[in-house]
């Protein structure tokens, strides 16, 4: 080993505390990136493999009813590769020992042979026996939520008739990776389930013998999806088709795509913020560290080492630190990534397996960004040091020029003893360096705020959604469009305080080249339960004759503004196409909706007072009895109770948020401590001689600690408000980046967020102060008098 390399390792060992702190900063940035990107890559790869191995269809269509021979006409459409018809039935379910309403869907499995499309992956048990009458396969989410095993039974109300079913298998389907009840905001595995039954048994129960109401197909390689969809719609128009749609509009896949898009954003924005801040800190810290090596650089030059050799020496030194940090970051990020992938697949997506993968590219990017930041910070300092003639570099540095600080020039100096003046002048002498230190600490504070921001934001979203907008206790859906008179019957049920009807129709909304498939919601214009909110979150009435759109739907999806005419293609009944003016924008954080007055939707559909469902306010305590009565009403299909929906939401995402907060806290904490500790250590190196001189002159350890730690404290305190600004800015970036159809995060920061941000800085400063206090006790008073700087 060459002497210079030996020096390298000795220096690193000598600086080990700082090396570790710098590595911690890099680790924080890299781990975030590796965690997010590997999770994203894993989920995408898992999805693609699952879709192809279990043959998810390319096009789906639902209809009222068509005789089986229609399928042959569909199969003849050019571009169709494989086609399969099914029976699909909306049902109510009963599980022993669980009294809340459960809704579900039963899909048919062929009695002969295996399913051609949308195949099931069996986790337990087996598929249904051919021609069996009471065997079902359960989706794993539902089975797990109720601890149902093969051999257990449950009851289903299919088409008004109660039927006891025996579970024979538990399975996962590519069609239901993301399971959420139609109309619900969040997944609720306890109250919504997907089941599969033999075709014959289901058709018999659902009155679909020799017919089908669901078709799915795959496309030949060169087929045009839109052509096929148009032809399918044409054939199914007479059979009550509600419009064929491709994978991108398929319910589970659409949510999955949106979630993955979010994750992709997270995998870009979070690491960019973390790694960016880490890179900045690295640059600042290293350039100061190298500046301290001035004399050594001069000696190396005096020996005759070339600029390049000296530069390479220090580059090697920082690259070793970077390598250490990246290695730790990749290890930690992989570990977190596996955890996060599992949290995802436990709480949100159901995949039968998980292909965890870490792309080499991810590691390379992390390495490149960290190395670039580190090396550039290093080279600037090395260049500055190398430019000095060796003799000058070896001479004690001229005492640096100081001036009186602003506070003193204002005439306040008599309040300040010499140590306080030293603090102020030291900060004032290198304002840029002090500013960078403040910024560095502020970034750590900001990162902590970003890491902890989600919880408060979600609480706020839920509050707006369920206390301001959807204030009903229970939302229920009828099997078919129903006369408004049904509302009176509901209102008369015991326990029901108040009823509001709604009429929703599936529709495609078009404006220019933009389209969106959604439900058009007809609600009471000045509803007490279901309300639309303006930009200040105040309830506003929906005006007659036009449509009010969620801000995100209007601005980002359809690109319309109030006054524009929207084309509404209704996908129900006679499938009218109408021009409807946009009358307003409503603020909504969760999902996107199009609202009209109920009467306007009725007019659009050329129908009388018709509803498809109702919002109910329920007397507390009377829920169980009301559920039982509603359960017995054959026309009532789905029920979503808001309270349980919120609970299940928190249960679902609680684990996710907990995990994420923990990770963010650990990483932001590591970065925060790394910065504060390094700033403090460098300050000690820069001023060790001065402080030791004072010790010799009779100053106590406490008195010199005041000079050193006073400066740290002052900079830390200054950094906290700056950190709050940085935090708000970073959260702002996050809010903009995270906008999606599923949800928009509000720019809400709670006092806890600020407290967390401040505390990471304060705790790091206290800890660093403690470590420094110990070092001050070990100052070598004799040596410092003998050596120059």
């Amino acid at each position, binding site marked *: 080993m060459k002497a210079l390399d030996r020096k390298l390792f000795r220096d690193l060992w000598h600086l080990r505390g700082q090396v570790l702190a710098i590595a911690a900063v890099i680790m924080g940035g890299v781990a975030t990136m590796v965690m997010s990107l590997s999770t994203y890559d894993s989920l995408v790869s898992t999805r693609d493999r699952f879709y192809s191995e279990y043959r998810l269809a390319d096009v789906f269509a639902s209809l009222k009813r068509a005789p089986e021979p229609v399928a042959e006409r569909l199969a003849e459409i050019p571009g169709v590769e494989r086609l399969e018809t099914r029976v699909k039935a909306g049902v109510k379910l009963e599980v022993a020992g669980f009294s809340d309403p459960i809704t579900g869907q039963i899909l048919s499995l062929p009695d002969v042979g295996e399913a051609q499309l949308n195949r099931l992956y069996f986790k337990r048990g087996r598929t249904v026996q051919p021609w069996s009458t009471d065997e079902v396969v359960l989706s794993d989410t539902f089975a797990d939520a109720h601890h149902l095993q093969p051999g257990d039974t449950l009851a289903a109300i299919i088409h008004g008739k109660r039927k006891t079913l025996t579970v024979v298998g538990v399975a996962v389907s590519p069609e239901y990776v993301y399971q959420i009840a139609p109309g619900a905001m969040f997944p609720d595995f306890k109250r919504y389930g997907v089941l599969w039954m033999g075709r014959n048994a289901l058709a018999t129960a659902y009155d679909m013998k020799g017919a089908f109401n669901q078709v799915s197909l795959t496309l030949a390689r060169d087929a045009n999806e839109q052509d096929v969809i148009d032809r399918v719609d044409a054939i199914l128009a007479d059979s009550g088709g509600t419009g064929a749609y491709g994978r991108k509009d398929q319910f589970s896949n659409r949510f999955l795509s949106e979630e993955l898009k979010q994750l992709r954003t997270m995998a870009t924005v979070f690491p960019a913020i973390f790694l960016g801040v880490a890179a900045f800190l690295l640059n600042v810290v290293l350039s100061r560290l190298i500046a301290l090596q001035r004399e050594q650089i001069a000696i190396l030059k005096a020996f005759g080492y070339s600029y390049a050799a000296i530069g390479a020496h220090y580059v090697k030194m920082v690259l070793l630190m970077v390598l250490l940090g990246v290695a730790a970051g990749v290890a930690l990020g992989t570990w977190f990534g596996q955890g996060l992938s599992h949290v995802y697949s436990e709480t949100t997506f159901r995949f039968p397996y998980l292909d965890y993968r870490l792309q080499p590219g991810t590691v390379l990017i992390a390495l490149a960004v960290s190395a670039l930041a580190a090396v550039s910070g290093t080279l600037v300092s090395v260049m500055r040091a190398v430019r000095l003639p060796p003799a000058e570099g070896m001479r*004690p540095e*001229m*005492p*640096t*020029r*100081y*001036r009186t600080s602003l506070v003193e020039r204002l005439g306040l100096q008599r309040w300040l*003893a*010499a*140590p306080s*003046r*030293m603090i102020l*002048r*030291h900060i004032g*002498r290198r304002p840029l360096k002090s500013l960078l230190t403040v910024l560095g600490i502020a970034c750590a504070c900001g990162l902590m705020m970003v890491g902890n921001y989600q919880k408060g934001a979600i609480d706020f979203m839920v509050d707006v959604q369920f206390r301001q907008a959807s204030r009903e206790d229970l939302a229920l859906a009828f099997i078919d469009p129903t006369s408004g008179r049904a509302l009176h019957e509901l209102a008369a049920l015991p326990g029901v305080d108040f009823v509001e009807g709604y009429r929703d129709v599936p529709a495609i909304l078009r404006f220019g080249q933009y389209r969106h498939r959604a439900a058009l919601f007809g609600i009471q214009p000045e509803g007490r339960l279901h309300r639309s909110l303006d930009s200040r979150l105040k309830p506003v009435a929906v005006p007659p004759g036009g449509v009010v759109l969620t801000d995100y739907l209007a601005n980002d999806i359809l690109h319309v503004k109030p006054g524009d005419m929207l084309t509404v293609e209704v996908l129900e009944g006679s499938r009218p196409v109408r021009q409807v003016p946009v009358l307003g924008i409503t603020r909504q954080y969760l999902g996107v909706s199009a609202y009209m007055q109920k009467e306007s939707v009725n007019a659009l559909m050329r129908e009388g007072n018709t509803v498809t469902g109702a919002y109910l306010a329920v007397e507390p305590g009377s829920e169980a009895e009301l559920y039982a009565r509603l359960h017995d009403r054959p026309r009532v299909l789905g029920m979503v109770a808001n309270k349980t929906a919120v609970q299940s939401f928190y249960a679902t995402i609680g684990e996710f948020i907990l995990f994420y907060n923990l990770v963010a806290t650990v990483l932001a904490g590591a970065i925060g401590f790394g910065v504060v500790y390094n700033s403090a250590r460098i300050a000690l190196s820069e001023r060790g*001689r*001065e402080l030791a*001189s*004072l*010790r*010799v*002159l*009779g*100053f*106590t*350890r406490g*008195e010199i600690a005041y000079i050193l730690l006073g400066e740290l404290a002052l900079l830390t305190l200054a950094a906290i408000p700056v950190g709050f600004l940085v935090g708000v800015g970073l959260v702002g970036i996050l809010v903009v980046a995270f906008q999606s159809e599923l949800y928009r995060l509000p720019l809400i920061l709670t006092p806890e967020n600020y407290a967390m941000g401040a505390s990471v800085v304060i705790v790091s400063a206290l800890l660093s102060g403690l470590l420094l206090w110990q070092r001050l006790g070990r100052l070598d*008073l*004799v040596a410092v*008098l*003998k050596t*120059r700087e």
Partner: protein
Amino acid sequence: MMARMPEASPNAVFVARGLTKVYRMGEVEVQALRGIDLTLYRGELVVLLGPSGSGKSTLLNILGGLDAPSGGEVYYLDHKLTGASEIELTRFRREHVGFVFQFYNLIPSLTARENVAAVTEIAESPMRPEEALGLVGLGNRLDHFPAQLSGGEQQRVAIARAVAKNPAVLLCDEPTGALDSATGVVVLEVLEKVNRELGTLTVLITHNAGIADMADRVIRLSDGRIADIHENAVKKPACELAW
């Protein structure tokens, strides 16, 4: 720290008996002091002379409470320095000792006046910083920062800082080591003046034999032992020194 001094000469300030100092430099032991017996008196100007490695700095550091001997005892008046705690030694330096260093060790962020004030603020009965700076001939450079002063001026500020608290002893380690001879003479004149006017026991380390002529006593160290103690019958004024 209170103790009886072994030899109760009324004018003794420091009494050292059998001082030894062994440094461990990794695997090697270095004998810096090998048994020093020494008494220093009030008002003296003592020059400690010796080549580098002779132990003079070690001796000075032990007298100044910066270092502890490996063996033997040191008394300052009626205080026993050997075995004193770090806190006691800090108080000893703070109250009784003034230091002047080869590289001045001024605080760069404080002006001349404030460098002196930094010490007088923590002393019991100091002179005013202006007075101390006047004593070293810098009454007109009170508000200059170290960066604005020449080397000789910086060293004079350091002397003012050392004497401003009215210490009983002034310990100077190669005070002219970093200065050219003309400037060095100016600094020595200041030390001479302080010693004369304030009667402060002044111990001055040098390896420059030419300086020895200004001392009351010259103590020559060699290889960790006192080789020779010599009293100057006639002190040469500093202004007549040259090297």
